[in-house]
């Protein structure tokens, strides 16, 4: 109890004294050393690695995310000995004069002979412009959707459909223009629609990385916006079994979520390990500051299982997962025609709303299932070669239940199946040179049924081949990559009882060049140039129908050619111990034949009324902007950070702005860190988000409603690891939109109808057994 008071007192200190304490002098022997330990091969974090400071005879173990901390160190030079069951022991001497972040990479036993050199090449500079989610961001965003989790990264925003559907947007691009790699396999669902959220259970993953530029070429040619890598933590190797329980509650929509994980490394055969996951989530209607949003509940049930077999020289991994969700869509948003839309917009509060809480989900709603089976083999050959084979199959079933005229069936069912085979060979040629060669094959088919046509049936075959070569030349690192993709698309239609078939073929080369220059011990400069092609997707070619959510009639064009993108990234990063961190990334993306949905006249006339018509057209576009991050830690207890993401998006053809692009946004966060014997890794952290009004909207198109005004949100988060008996319980308490601010966001397609959700108090618990 006394500890609890102590904890609360710390919170009070932060809230009352603010930054006063920031200037406090640092006493001697109060330095903190922290960082992470990861696998040198795949850079995955290593849990339970032991770190010993030889001179002090002090040691600690990394947590499951691979993080470690030493507190109250005196300045000086120390020898660190890092050991892990699977890896070679590493001994490193580190000088500490101020708080320091130090990351270690450990080589695997089985690679001992062939990879001593690999290590030195691999521990060279990071070439890609990428950003990973921190452990704290991850624990705060658990239980949310993938889009909401990723928007914590600079330069990533979300495209929203109401309060339930979130799609990640990287530098203004989304849907088919970014690739989601879930556990080493490209996620293949119905990504083309803005109301189609990625089918991923974030609890299965442990690492979320956004690759903003050139590095995405490994995963496919069409990643002209970037790639998102979602990876689980490695299977256990310490001959123990472990369970983890996660629970979360979200006050706004009274949503609860639970996740159970159980993993084991066999005692009888230490080569064998496995893990299972179960997640259940249920939420009701969300609430804006002034009213409930009818029919915005959701329900999700996911299971996953993975098993691995690991021997010197090879490794096999089988992964199976099932994802199933039912998402309610705000009932006031599905409008009948243009008149309904105008009535809905003219009304301050939504017209067709039932203003009360309920968990019930009625029409309109979506029901989505996604299944993945994956087999990964990894073996090391002679002459520094390592091979990796990934075979996977995904099935995605989507049922859309609109406001039906009479039927009980879904208006639209889409069923997409994808089989893929990826082969990768990595070669270490010397201390300073390494390369990769990859082959990818994909077969996909999509079948629709129901009473409402939107996209036709199709069959796709994609064959890809790529090569990457990496050099280390003094303070320079260099990476060049080439890729060629062949795609064949066969479309099957049936209009007025007449069946037809059409074929499209695309041959697309892509290339990237990345250079990194180490300016000094503290700073690095990176430049990425990538040239990528994206074949038009079937919706852009063939869509022809009513989009109920937007009351618009969309028409594709089957004569489209591929989009060609030239993206340039320039990043400067500076890290002075752990006291200063600066990261500035400037990006520019020139896209030729950018496929864009634009309004067109006349409106489509039907017996239901009139609908505005939108057609896909190809234009030349230029998107440019900057991501800026700045962090400063004054002492072991005070830390602050600011982030900014700026974006300009032009249509060069129409000499006008592009529509539906995120506006500039800024974030500031202050953290007070402390620890007591009972409450470890504790923090209290208020933050501020400011989003500017989007003033760069197309002048040629009069939107139904002008872009909403700028807004500022205040959020508060606090967390601690509480010791109860011999166990640790991780507790995170967050209050999003603390002041219950009423606002609308330009990137939410439902901004025409409703405000954004109001205050949301979030409690998350993590209990390791």
């Amino acid at each position: 109890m006394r500890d609890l008071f102590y904890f609360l007192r710390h919170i009070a200190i932060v809230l009352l004294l603010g930054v006063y304490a920031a200037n406090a002098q640092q006493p001697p022997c109060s330095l903190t050393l922290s960082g992470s330990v990861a696998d040198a091969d795949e850079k995955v974090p290593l849990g339970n690695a032991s770190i010993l400071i030889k001179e002090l005879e002090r040691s600690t173990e990394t947590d499951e995310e691979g993080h470690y901390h030493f507190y109250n160190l005196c300045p000086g030079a120390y020898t660190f000995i890092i050991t892990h069951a699977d890896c070679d022991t590493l001994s490193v001497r580190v000088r500490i004069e101020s708080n320091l972040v130090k990351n270690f990479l450990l080589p695997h036993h089985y690679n001992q002979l062939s990879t001593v050199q690999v290590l030195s090449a691999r521990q060279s500079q990071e070439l890609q412009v990428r950003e990973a989610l921190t452990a704290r961001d991850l624990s705060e965003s658990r239980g949310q959707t993938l889009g909401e989790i990723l928007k914590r990264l600079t330069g990533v925003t979300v495209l929203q459909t109401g309060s339930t559907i979130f799609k990640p947007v990287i530098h203004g691009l989304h849907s088919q223009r970014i690739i989601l790699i879930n556990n080493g396999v490209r996620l293949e669902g119905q990504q083309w629609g803005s109301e189609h959220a990625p089918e991923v259970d974030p609890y299965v993953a442990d690492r979320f990385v956004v690759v903003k530029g050139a590095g995405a070429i490994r995963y496919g040619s069409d990643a002209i916006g970037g790639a998102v890598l979602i990876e689980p933590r490695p299977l256990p190797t310490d001959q123990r079994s472990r369970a983890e329980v996660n629970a979360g509650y979200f006050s706004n929509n009274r949503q609860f979520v639970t996740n159970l994980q159980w993993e084991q490394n066999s005692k009888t055969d230490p080569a064998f390990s496995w893990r299972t996951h179960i997640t259940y989530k249920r939420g009701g209607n969300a609430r804006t500051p002034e009213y409930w949003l009818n029919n915005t509940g959701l329900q999700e049930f996911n299971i996953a299982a993975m098993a691995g077999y690991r021997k010197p020289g090879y490794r096999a991994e089988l992964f199976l997962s099932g994802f199933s969700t039912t998402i309610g869509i705000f009932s006031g948003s599905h409008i009948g025609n243009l008149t309904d839309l105008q009535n809905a917009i003219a009304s301050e509060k939504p017209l067709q709303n039932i203003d009360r809480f309920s968990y019930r989900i009625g029409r309109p709603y979506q029901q989505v299932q996604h299944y993945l089976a994956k087999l990964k083999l990894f073996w090391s050959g002679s002459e520094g070669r390592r091979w990796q084979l990934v075979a996977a199959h995904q099935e995605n079933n989507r049922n859309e239940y609109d406001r039906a005229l009479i039927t009980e069936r879904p208006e639209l069912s889409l069923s997409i199946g994808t089989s893929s085979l990826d082969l990768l060979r990595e070669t270490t040629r010397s201390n300073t040179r390494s390369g990769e060669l990859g082959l990818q094959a994909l077969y996909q088919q999509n079948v629709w049924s129901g009473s409402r046509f939107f996209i036709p049936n199709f069959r796709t075959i994609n064959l890809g081949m790529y090569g990457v070569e990496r050099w280390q030349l003094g303070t320079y690192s260099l990476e060049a990559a080439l890729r060629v993709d062949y795609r064949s698309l066969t479309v099957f239609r049936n209009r007025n009882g007449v069946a037809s078939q059409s074929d499209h073929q695309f041959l697309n080369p892509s290339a990237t060049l990345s250079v990194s220059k180490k300016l000094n011990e503290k700073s690095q400069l990176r430049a990425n140039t990538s040239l990528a092609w994206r074949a038009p997707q079937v919706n852009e070619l063939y869509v022809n129908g009513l989009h109920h959510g937007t009351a618009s009639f969309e028409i594709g064009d089957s004569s489209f050619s591929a989009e060609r993108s030239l993206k340039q990234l320039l990043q400067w990063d500076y890290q002075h111990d752990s006291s200063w961190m600066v990261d500035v990334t400037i990006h520019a993306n020139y896209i030729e034949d950018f496929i864009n949905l634009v309004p067109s006249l006349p409106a489509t006339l039907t017996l239901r009324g009139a609908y505005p018509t939108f057609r896909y057209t190809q234009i030349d576009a230029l998107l440019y902007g900057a991501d800026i991050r700045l962090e400063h830690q004054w002492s072991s207890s005070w830390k602050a950070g600011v982030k900014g993401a700026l974006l300009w998006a032009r249509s060069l053809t129409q000499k006008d702005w592009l529509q539906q692009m995120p506006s500039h946004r800024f974030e500031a966060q202050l953290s007070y860190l402390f620890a007591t014997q009972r409450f470890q890794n504790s923090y209290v952290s208020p933050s501020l988000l400011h989003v500017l009004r989007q003033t760069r909207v197309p002048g040629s198109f009069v939107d139904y409603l002008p872009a909403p005004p700028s807004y500022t949100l205040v959020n508060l988060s606090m967390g601690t690891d509480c010791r109860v008996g011999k166990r640790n319980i991780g507790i995170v308490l967050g209050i999003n939109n603390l002041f219950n601010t009423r606002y609308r966001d330009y990137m939410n397609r439902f901004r025409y109808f409703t405000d954004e959700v109001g205050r949301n108090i979030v409690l998350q618990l993590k209990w390791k057994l």
Partner: protein
Amino acid sequence: MSSIKEVVMLALVVMAIGSSCKKPSNANDENEHEAINKVVLTFSRPGTANLVFLAEDPDGDGGLPPSRVDTVRLAAGQNYAVAIQFINIVNGVEKDITPAIVAQGRSHEVFYIPTTVQLTVTKTDRDLSGFPIGVNSTWQTGSAAIGTVLVKLMHKTGIKGPADSPNVGHSDLQLPMPIRLQ
């Protein structure tokens, strides 16, 4: 290594099963199957032959605009019993969906909104809650005039009341028909 081979075989079998269920080459018909693309209004008055007026859009939403919208010609100062029929046409095959709409009467209501002509419309049918549906109604026509009557079918699951404005819910049909009272 033999265990790995078995796992590979198993995975390939699973893939083969997974991808062989549905054939994309057997495509579904693209015409919307449940839209209303024909509306028939039947007017009856004792002692006279029934009057029938209709509107249709045989190729459905998009494509060509509605091919026929009749002018409703009625006698001035009379009482008519009116029945409306909602029909779906796919590839020339007609399906009457009026009974299904009446069966889901608590989710639907038909409105007739006159402009520049005088009409008094009384809905004569009721749903299970006792609220009007409007598939059957009586129209009392005013003096001779020319104008339009907007026929609206509103969809309002869970929000229907006894005397809603024509703007409550979503439009399943919004059809302005010219009208002449003579």
